[in-house]
């Protein structure tokens, strides 16, 4: 585990990751990143940058340095535990054709 981005500033402004909820009932999705001096201005910049055409009803901004991400180098071992557990999927089980609604 490590932070996803090296700490970076542009003209003294930290980098923020922006997540937008496109409509009620859907979760926030990563839209991109931007620079802003603080969270308040990051939100306003994000509104102007990512929702010029009503693409969102809610925005989250997170300092890029606060995001903790799994490393791609450990991609295989890190996700291995789920690799051999096919019995977690419904398709693993045989159900006779004549049995309905299952």
């Amino acid at each position: 585990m490590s932070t996803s981005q090296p700490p970076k500033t542009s003209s003294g402004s930290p980098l923020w990751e922006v997540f937008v909820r496109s409509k009620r009932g859907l979760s926030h999705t990563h839209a991109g990143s931007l620079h802003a001096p603080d969270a308040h201005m990051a939100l306003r910049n994000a509104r102007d940058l990512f929702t010029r055409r009503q693409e969102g009803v809610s925005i989250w901004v997170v300092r890029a340095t606060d995001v903790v991400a799994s490393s791609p180098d450990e991609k295989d071992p890190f996700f291995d535990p789920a690799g051999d557990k096919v019995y977690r999927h419904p398709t693993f089980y045989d159900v006779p054709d004549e049995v309905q609604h299952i």
Partner: protein
Amino acid sequence: MDALEQQFQDTVDGDGRIEPRDWMPEGYRATLIRQIAQHAHSEIIGMQPEGNWITRAPSLRRKAILVAKVQDEAGHGLYLYGAAETLGADRDELLDLLHAGKQKYSTIFNYPTVSWADVAAIGWLVDGAAIMNQVPLTRCSYGPYARAMIRVCKEESFHQRQGFEALTVLANGSPAQRRMAQDALNRWWWPSLMMFGPSDDNSPNSARSMAWGIKRFSNDELRQRFVDATVPQAEWLGLTVPDPDLRYDEETGHYVFGEIDWTEFFEVMKGNGPCNRQRLATRVAAHEEGAWVREAAAAYAAKHSAREVAA
């Protein structure tokens, strides 16, 4: 080829996407940073030719549309600088390189907008050519660049249509308006064809970019596609494409067009176009004169965080 490089190439060959923290060849990273930065610079320099007409747009409707379009170009620049930063580039450094003339932007923005019809022609031709170039980039092998391009392409469609609509009005207007429309087409046609870059036999890095999944079609293929799509639109407008050699080839189903003046292209690229110096000077002045805004924003943020600590 070592194991990491093999894994990278397999991902690209399998039409998979490379993401920021994946291993990638240094040449791939450098090529992408250069290309994305150049693309970002083009977006923000591209605000200038059309921005020139915001105060003189012929109606409030056209003015609101033009403001929205120029704002979109700024937004496109920001999406792209963001994508370049995922590769480890520093935004301030990229801007310094642009201001120092060490990184390029598209040659098309070094031509002047002398009449209102030029704004219309830019939307139709320049944004039309940009769409032709950018649609394949939505499937580029580098994830953040491809995702930025999806947003950009959605927005460019409005840019092209508003230009075509504005030009339709002029082409069906008074004789003077028709002349303006034809004059704009005369001046923007060839520079628009140059936007696809040098011909394939003079494009040294194309093969590598293709192997890396950054580029999907050659410059000449995309240029041909643009000509095939655009010539019938010009005919519909009742305007004449300024190319005496232009003809439709029944056999291939494509338009055959005349020789592009590559001397002009390379001269504009070297800095000798009609507006190169003006564009760069305006850009540098905007950056320097905007320094107080960045400082004020930083001071405001510092003051508020100090208050929060005190509270």
